[in-house]
């Protein structure tokens, strides 16, 4: 009899469907109406019992009566409930007429909950689902290692610098950068013994370019401030005014680095003093050299 069942399984001895937690007892039985382990909600300890369960989106009402207690195969009677919410509630009422109030009420509550979560499932499947793709540790490690090696092999800075210099050579920048062309430089280097006029003329040309460059350099103030060259530029301009008469090639070398940051190495072979001074001092130095 149900009372005996409850006294043994439910209350005292072991029930395999029972889960105990600190505050509550739960019942794992699939036919349980509320999910808790109670005298009134235990499907084993009640000979007249009903539940609502859903299968593949359709809800069924399961009923158990005393008459069929001896036939476990036919114990649970299943009734398909209508898809319409109100109609289904009426069906439940109809089927469970004359049943205890508790079971009827709980069945309807459970049915409501089930329909709600079915609606939510249908809504979510229409939205975009996040697909979880498992990471494979070995592969991730391999990829990471290969990436590091590829980075080292790439030598990015060198590649970028090379490419930029290539583009400069091929004149993609047009007139912005007025560097003397390689051929021009090399030709001048080969001619060591030059006449003064020739060299003067060249120097004047270079002076012009020099002016341009200087203007260009100073205009782009903001970016150059980041480079160390700017410091040398400022200091060297002060030095220059003081040391007018000294023919210090070494000083000019160091000055040249700061003063003309955009010049090529060929510059160093020429005496610098003429180049560095502006228009006023040029004739003075020329007479001195002569």
């Amino acid at each position: 009899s149900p009372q005996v069942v409850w006294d043994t399984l439910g209350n005292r001895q072991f029930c395999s469907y029972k889960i105990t937690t600190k505050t509550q007892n739960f019942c794992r039985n699939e036919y349980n109406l509320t999910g808790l382990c109670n005298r009134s909600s235990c499907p084993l300890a009640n000979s007249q019992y009903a539940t609502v369960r859903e299968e593949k989106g359709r809800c069924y009402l399961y009923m158990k009566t005393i008459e069929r207690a001896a036939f476990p195969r036919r114990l649970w009677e299943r009734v398909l409930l209508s898809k319409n919410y109100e109609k289904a509630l009426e069906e439940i009422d109809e089927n469970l007429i004359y049943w205890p109030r508790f079971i009827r009420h709980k069945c309807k509550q459970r049915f409501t909950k089930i329909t709600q979560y079915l609606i939510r499932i249908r809504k979510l499947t229409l939205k975009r689902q996040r697909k979880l793709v498992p990471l494979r540790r070995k592969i991730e490690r391999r990829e990471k290692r290969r990436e590091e090696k590829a980075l080292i092999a790439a030598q990015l800075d060198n590649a970028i610098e090379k490419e930029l210099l290539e583009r400069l050579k091929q004149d993609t920048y047009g007139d912005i950068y007025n560097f003397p062309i390689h051929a021009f430089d090399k030709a001048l280097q080969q001619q060591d013994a030059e006449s003064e006029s020739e060299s003067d003329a060249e120097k004047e040309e270079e002076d012009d370019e020099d002016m341009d460059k200087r203007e260009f350099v100073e205009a782009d103030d903001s970016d150059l401030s980041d480079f160390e060259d700017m410091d040398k530029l400022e200091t060297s301009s002060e030095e220059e005014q003081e040391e007018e008469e000294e023919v210090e090639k070494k000083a000019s070398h160091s000055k040249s680095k700061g003063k003309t940051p955009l010049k090529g190495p060929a510059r160093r072979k020429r005496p610098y003093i003429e180049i560095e001074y502006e228009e006023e001092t040029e004739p003075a130095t020329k007479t001195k050299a002569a």
Partner: protein
Amino acid sequence: AGGGPVGSAAGDGGPPAPERVLFPPTFSVSEIKNKQRRHFMFLRWKQQQRKEKLAAKKKRRKEREALGDKAPPKAIPKTIENQRVYDETTVDPNDEEVAFDEATDEFAPYFNRQTVPKILITTSDRPRGRTVRFCEQLSTVIPNSHVFYRRGLALKRIIPQCIARDFTDLMVINEDRKIPNGLVLSHLPDGPTAHFRMSSVRLRKEIKRKGKEPTEHAPEVILNNFTTRLGHSVGRMLASLFPHDPQFIGRQVATFHNQRDYIFFRFHRYIFKSEKKVGIQELGPRFTLKLRSLQKGTFDSKFGEYEWIHKRREMDTNRRKFHL
């Protein structure tokens, strides 16, 4: 057989080893049962191997110098790039077919200057701080780009709206555990969609440099090492993000460098110190991309026609075979 050296080792690792102890060729370290002694003998054996190797190297160098001009040329060390399996789809610069293809593909209007690139940058749902900041920085790097947050909108519905508002490209940055890890780049009016895996993303403040922020000037674009046909299409796709005419005044350059199928993105500011020296300074974010798939139409995961997918089992096995 090994009487001499074994005898000297009998006094343990304390006494220094004699200069020219020669191990007989039948000597094997593993025959000694005592671990300490075995270890000691192994070390000595290793030292001797090293000495022999050094001596052999010196000898070879002397021979080489002695021969002078007649010496055989130095052997080139093998690198993965040298040993790369020749890909049959490598593009020959003079290939007419490829040139014709490129003149008629989806990027032709960009390269003919008919369209101006306009980029929409967005993320997956609920982006976290890092991704948001990365998107902002990316939008400063790419001119004419806008960041929009996706609040649960489906990509398929966004795309027609974008086309209606004249966007040319759509970039979706996918996020996982608060870091960006994927990029979907879709050329909009019906163009190819590329799906990349993004790794080692560095934001501007994490890069060690002392530069300022990128300005509004259009940067130059450098595409390195895109050799195969697939690499060509990907390269064109990446290039079409930037305006066709770079402003040289800005002196900024965006680089996509492909090395062993990894595309490294860097953003620099350059300055020419002389005609043979250039200085570069890194600003802007950096990241690495690895192509996962290339689709013909716009983003469509179910019915899309895939031009190329990375198949791990077939493509990852050979270490010298690359596809980009």
